[in-house]
Structures are given as C-alpha cells and as structure tokens.
C-alpha cells in the first residue's frame, strides 16, 4: 500500500513544483514591496516628528500584535464588504507586504539607531543635507546591523506565506492539503512539502548566519 501511494505521490510531483513556484512568487513579490515599505517606515520613524512616529508605531503594533491568519482573513473577507474586490493572489501579496513591512520597519529603525550620534553630527558639520546624511553616512553603517536580521525576516516571510493557502491560493501547502485527500499518507505528503520549503529556506538561513559572522568580524577589526 505504501509503495502504491509513493508512486502516486511521485506522479503528482509536478503540481508540488508548481505549488512551490507560487510560494516563491508570492513571497518574492511581498519581500520586495515589504522591504521598500519597511525601509521607508523605518527611516521615517527615526525622524523627530511625533505624529508620524505615533502612526508608524500604531501600524507596527497592530501588525505585530495579531496573528497573520487573522490579518489575511480581514483582507480577504472584509475588504469585499467595503467594496474592494481582491483576488486571492493580490490579497495575499498585499497582506504579506503590510505584514513584512512592520517587522522590517523595526529592523531598519533599530539599525539606524545603532549608528553613534557622532556620525550624525559629523555628517551635519560636513554640510550634508538630511538625505545625503542618510544615504552616504548613516545607512551604509546601519546596513551592517540590518542585514542579518533582514535575511532572517525573509525566511519568516516565506514560511508565513504558507498561511495564504487558507484563502484558496494553491501554494505548496495547499497542494499538500489537496493531495492528502487523495493520498492519505500525511507523513509522506507533508514530508515532501516540508522538504520543498527546506530547499528554499535553509540556504537563506545559512546566508543570514554568514552575514552575521562576516559583519561582526569586520566590526572587531575596526
């Protein structure tokens, strides 16, 4: 029986590969948009303008304080009530972007705040305007603190993208869920799903660790 199911699982391998491709697409798009959003929000949060800071802090808390599952339900079921019709793919990318943006905002703001105040003062006295200070002096140094957790956040994003399967997007988790109805070998089916995620996420985890080691060694040398 086990061999029979294994053969059928091998036959349905193409649909799993299609599923992981959907996962990569969804998380890749929201990774790009989420990084842009998080970068903007993180930079703006470090400016001393109270109302803006309060708005960004509220956004970050709302996203970080609620499960992503509830957030995607809100996007998928409630936006139509307010007259905004979204397809599953668009709802997934939009909600994942807002979700990742909040976490990336924290990472970016933390990185910018880790740059010593003297650097700001030196940049200011060199006659740079705010944009130049940020682009030429602060961000390059902040990047060292930002990069390792940022890549770690990408891994979390890819993993959390599995939750979009509940609104009917056929990512690899949903392919597994559909397959297990035909092939009742959960260990085998979701073992395969897990292996596919592993292939995508593990290299990124290693990359994050590599960044961490490389960038801290550099710091010691200075």
């Amino acid at each position, binding site marked *: 029986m086990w061999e029979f199911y294994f053969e059928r699982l091998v036959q349905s391998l193409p649909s799993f590969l299609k599923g992981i491709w959907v996962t990569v697409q969804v998380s890749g798009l929201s990774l790009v948009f989420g990084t842009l959003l998080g970068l903007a929000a993180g930079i703006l949060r470090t400016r001393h303008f109270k109302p803006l800071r309060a708005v960004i802090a509220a956004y970050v*808390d*709302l996203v*970080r*304080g*609620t*499960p*992503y*599952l*509830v*957030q995607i*339900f*809100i996007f998928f*079921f*409630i936006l139509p*009530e*307010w007259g905004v019709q979204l397809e599953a793919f668009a709802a997934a990318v939009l909600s994942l972007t807002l979700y990742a943006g909040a976490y990336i905002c924290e990472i970016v703001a933390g990185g910018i705040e880790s740059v010593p105040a003297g650097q700001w003062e030196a940049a200011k006295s060199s006659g740079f305007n705010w944009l130049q200070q940020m682009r030429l002096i602060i961000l390059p140094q902040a990047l060292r603190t930002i990069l390792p957790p940022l890549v770690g956040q990408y*891994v979390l994003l*890819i*993993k*959390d*993208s*599995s*939750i979009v*399967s*509940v609104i009917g997007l056929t990512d690899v*988790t949903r392919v*597994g*869920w559909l397959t*297990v109805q035909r092939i*009742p*070998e*959960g*260990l*085998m*089916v*979701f*073992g395969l*799903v*897990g292996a596919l*995620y*592993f292939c995508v*996420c*593990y290299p990124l*985890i290693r990359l994050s660790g590599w960044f961490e080691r490389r960038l801290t060694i550099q710091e010691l040398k200075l």
Partner: protein
Amino acid sequence: MLSTFNFRVIIDYLPLFFEGFLATLWISAVAMAAALAVGIVACILRISSLRCFTWPSTAYIEIIRSTPLLAQLYFFYFGLPSLGIRLTEYQTGIIALALNSGAYIAEIIRAGILAVHPGQVEAGIAFGLNFFQRMRYIILPQAIGTTIPPLLGQGIVLVKDSALLSLISVFELTRVGQMMASERFMPAEGFFTTALCYLILYYILKFLSRRWQGRLVAQRAV
C-alpha cells in the same frame, strides 16, 4: 466603515470570545511549558561535546526553523493517524506548537549561554569547579536574565501561532471569529474582535518584556 458595525452581535458572542480567549491562553501556556522543556533538552544536547548528541539536535533545530508551522501542523495532523497514533486535535496542536517553539527556544538559550563572557568560564575552571558547578553557579545565573526578554518574545510568537490551530478545528480565539463569520455572515465584527483580543495579550506580554529589560539595564548600571 464603522456605521455598519453591528455591536449587538458582538455582545451576543462576547461569552464565546471569552471562552476562546481562555482557550488560547491555556493552549499557549501548556505549549510554552512543553516548549521550554524541549528547548532546554535540545540546547543541552546541542552544546554538549558529543557528536552523537549534537548532530540530532542540530538537525531538529534546523529542520523546524526552515519549514512553516502550518506544514508541521498538517504533518502531525494528517501523518500521525497513518502511524496508528490517534490524538485529539488539541493534543496534535499542542505537540506541533511545542516542537516548533522548542527549536527557537533552544537557540535563544544557547545564545544566552554563549553571551556569558569566556573569562567567566575560565575563572570557574581556575576555581576548580566542574562542568555542572560552572553551569549552576556561574553561567546560568548570568544567562537566565538575558534570555527572559527573548523568551517572552517567543511567547508572543507562540500565542499568535496558536491561531493556526483553528485550521484543524481546535476551539480558540480565531475559531470564534470564523464561527461568527460563517454563522452570522459578519466577518468584520468577528475578526476585528478576535484581533482586539490578541492585541490585549500582546500588550501584556510586551509590557512584561519591557519591564524586565529595564531591570536588566538597571542591574548593569550598578
């Protein structure tokens, strides 16, 4: 937006939300206790110098960290019955949550232990303390303080992750929101109330974490 919000239905469902809140609370508490046990064991095996212990625990941690919780949950939910193990949805969910968080907690504790200055360990060796005495009197008292905030952070993650249990029909907060959406066709009321309940839990845990961090800073200053 809010003009169509039906507060009467929310009040009707309030007792159910309270039950869901308590369910989320005890599920998370049990899973967190189990995850701590799993994490401590995995961490001890990982930092031990014996290859035959290090390897399995490293594999466990890396596999858990590079696959999504949802896939792990389905793996146990659909997979355990085909091994002849029949558990309730609650048990399956708590096991999946505990094994998932356990891997992250192992890494948190390991980071806390590695952050203790090597000079401290050397001093312990110079005093003639053996491995257990060094752990008990020198390393752990210093490591525990610094691991509390990230452990509380993992607690927040676990509370939010427990929302996924609603997908295998465990009764908890998100499930109540889903019930309200399907029974009364009021997803907005249901999911916003659910989100609010999670936010309450989030702010409590965040407050505790902040306070502990403040104490740590105060201790360092002395």
